[in-house]
């Protein structure tokens, strides 16, 4: 691409108020980003505004901002360098081919990490609520670890809750994972996930956004982000979602984009999974009933590297060198993640022994404690 056109392209895309649709119309009307900026400079943009298609005028403050961008088109590029971001535009060959299904594909995708992670041949989205139950958190980790172990890139949104569990389990399994964030890279997800973000990048993953670095998160940014998340995946698994959840929205996007959608069913009447049940009832989503069944379904759809029935060599039993107490605690948390109190009741062991066993499992990377619940981690996720 002509370098000056690319600079103009980045400058125009970074203007607050110019979304993918407006961007597309402007570029189509003026024949290129550079022409749009020229038009802004000599006043044609303001007068002609754009009556193309919709007949709506561009708000004057947006015109003014384009004018400012036109005066110093290098400013946007400089900002990108400061943040250490790479960019991909539809004019670049490396632009994710999966974005082909999008009606309003992002004019620019900003990212950290390895852009090749976006073009991997096998990608699975794992999404769900920000306030999961311990069981939901464990299931997200289990799914992520499983598909990552079969070579999938795990796509999620870096939010706390299910997203975080999926990302964390993937990096723990030394897999690649892509976080699609709903704000600019100046605000990359919740503060509690800063360390997780670094681990994602260290494991060859990527953190991407369609928003310019300084764009803040707002009411609309997360739902719009969801369409990118589902588009980047070949299949999406909704792990746990109450009736009002972004994950439901992601699920709908996935179906519209022709992605395979799997939804973990919940118990009827349980508000934590009410959204999942509605997706199952109202859409052609497939129920997620188990990891083996997921593999089978994906293989039937031609997704992923594994043919049906083709299992990798079984990993060694992670519990093999544990003592009796640790083993029974491990079995209990693999079956039902719960707080220490429940573990004492479930195993019948003295509290001190349970506490010690959990510590040892944590040291072995087989358990972690989140919000008071002991969750299985690492190889222990492959049991139960």
């Amino acid at each position: 691409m002509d370098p000056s056109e690319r600079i103009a392209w980045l400058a125009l895309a970074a203007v607050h108020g110019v979304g993918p649709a407006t961007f597309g119309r402007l570029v189509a009307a003026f024949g290129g980003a550079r022409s749009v900026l020229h038009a802004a400079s000599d006043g044609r943009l303001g007068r002609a505004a754009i009556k193309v298609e919709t007949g709506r005028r561009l708000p004057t403050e947006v015109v003014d901002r384009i004018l400012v961008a036109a005066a110093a088109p290098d400013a946007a590029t400089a900002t990108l360098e400061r943040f250490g971001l790479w960019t991909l535009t539809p004019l670049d060959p490396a632009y994710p081919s999966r974005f082909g299904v999008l009606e309003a594909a992002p004019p620019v995708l900003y990212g950290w990490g390895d852009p090749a992670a976006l073009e991997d041949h096998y990608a699975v989205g794992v999404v769900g609520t920000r306030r999961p139950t311990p069981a939901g958190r464990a299931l997200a980790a289990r799914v992520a670890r499983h598909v990552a172990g079969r070579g999938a890139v795990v796509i999620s949104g870096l939010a706390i809750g299910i997203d975080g569990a999926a990302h964390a389990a993937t990096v723990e399994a030394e897999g690649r994972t892509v976080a699609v964030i709903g704000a600019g890279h100046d605000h990359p997800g919740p503060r509690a996930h800063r360390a997780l973000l670094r681990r994602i990048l260290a494991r060859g993953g990527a953190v991407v956004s369609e928003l310019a670095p300084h764009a803040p998160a707002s009411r609309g940014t997360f739902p719009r982000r969801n369409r990118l998340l589902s588009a980047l995946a070949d299949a999406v698994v909704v792990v746990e979602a109450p009736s009002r959840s972004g994950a439901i929205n992601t699920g709908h996007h996935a179906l519209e984009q022709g992605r395979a959608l799997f939804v973990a069913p919940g118990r009827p009447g349980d508000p934590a999974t009410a959204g999942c049940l509605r997706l199952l009832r109202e859409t052609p989503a497939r129920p997620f009933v188990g990891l083996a069944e997921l593999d089978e379904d994906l293989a039937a759809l031609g997704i992923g590297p594994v043919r049906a029935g083709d299992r990798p060599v079984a990993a060694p039993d992670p519990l093999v060198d544990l003592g009796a107490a640790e083993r029974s605690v491990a079995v209990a948390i693999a079956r039902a993640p719960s707080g220490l109190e429940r573990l004492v009741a479930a195993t019948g062991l003295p509290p001190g022994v349970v506490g010690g066993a959990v510590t040892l499992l944590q040291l072995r990377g087989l358990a972690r404690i989140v919000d008071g619940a002991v969750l299985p981690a690492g190889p222990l996720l492959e049991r139960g």
Partner: protein
Amino acid sequence: MLATLVTAVVSGLHGALVRVEVDVSPGLPVCHIVGLPDAALSEARERVRAAIRNAGFAYPASRITVNLAPADRRKHGAAYDLAIGVGILVASEQIRAGGGAWALLGELSLDGTLQAVPGVLPMVATLARAGQRRVGVPAANLEEARLVEGVEAVGLDGLDDAARLVAGPRGRRAMSAARRPVIGVSGLPAAGIAAPTGAAPEGRVALVSGLEPVDLREVRGQPFARWALEVALAGGHNLLMVGPPGAGKTLLARAIPGLLPPLDEDEALEVAVIASVAGLLGDGRRPGRRRPFRAPHHTASYAALVGGGPRLLPGEVTLAHRGTLFLDELAEFDRGVLDALRQPLEEGSVVISRAAGQVRYPARLQLVAAMNPCRCGYWGDPQRACCCAPGDPERYVRRVSGPLLDRLDLRVELGRVPPRELLGGPEPEASAVVAARIALARERARARNGGRLNADLSGAAALAAAESEPRARTRLAELAEAGALSARNVHRLLRVARTVADLAGAPHVDEAAILAAAGLRDPAGDRLGAADAA
């Protein structure tokens, strides 16, 4: 004529001897009190005058000068009233001092009866050290005064009792003529000198009212938190309980008084002195052997918690000395107030400096705190949704500063008890059973540590505890490497592990004790401990 009597003042936890000199001489009827009294003390003039008249004596229509010596010590409070009143009676020759040298303490009411005063115990102790052998105190303060050895203490109900005491059997002169019975509120004649009573009720001096003790048998479920509490009490470790409303945090805390062994003699005296100064003994209660348990409300001010005010009174941290300070709803306390806890937790004492002076109070307390996981209380609850805004739970926990959290050696998360367990389930252990284990573990620790609890062990001594167990040391190194422990926390972990071993009767800190202790440290996971656990 001049009369001289002995009384005392209290500052901090220490008393000081004060001489009251009263001169009654011809002149215009006026009363001067000199010798650096504070404003409240000049009100004594009015109280004494009314008390003398209402007790059936005559208030001399002469020039009265009262000197409180030494003059350079600031004096406050109303404990001098009685000495001044009796001094005026002696100086005006209504009674003759013939009953030997009595020191007098007490505040006068207008009707001539005596009110209890704070600080009688340290004041009497000071008088005893100064060689004073006989002390008259308000009857309500008698029990504490009698804790001091080598002093004959007598309880007094009013000015006339005191006059009789000072006059001795032969010294009454004007008394019989002017005497008329004093009628109390109940309509009964005021009693004479209180007979030494043997069985005053043992005061629940330090237990805050409204927080009735609970037996552990009444606490169902929560096996892990119960165990954590046992470890905390056995070793004197500070404990934080996090859990939703109704999980049983407060209930467990209320069981603490019944789980701790009684104070030994020296400790009991320390606690009694504090209770005396705080005015908690003035209702005729005998200071007991029970360990203090203080539970200030979360609206408590800095001065209430740490101590202070114009009189530099002890705060809750001092009232909890040798006992437990229970802070319910920890995150709701004022931040500045909480951070002021760091000094007492670290040094075992607290220094209060004001314009009025500087006092050091002991504050060797065990802190037990409870809080909700978030404002609504249901963060992480498997059944009920938390209704806090995103990010709020994190902010809520951050209200408690890191350094304070760091000093809470044990942290447990309590889940809600399922109804099934509330209604049925195994019968929980009774407090007496747990208390016996705790007492045994404390004895073991004390015998080994030279009288100290494990929480007070030095870092070096804590490290030595795991010396002889190579597997324990390996585990410790693993934990430190996993990033779970800072250098200081290694010591903390070892102290807790030492207690776990003591409870188990193990001579050394073994691998199991190290792991179990680490399991008591973490629970709240990503929000209280490591920043990122996803």
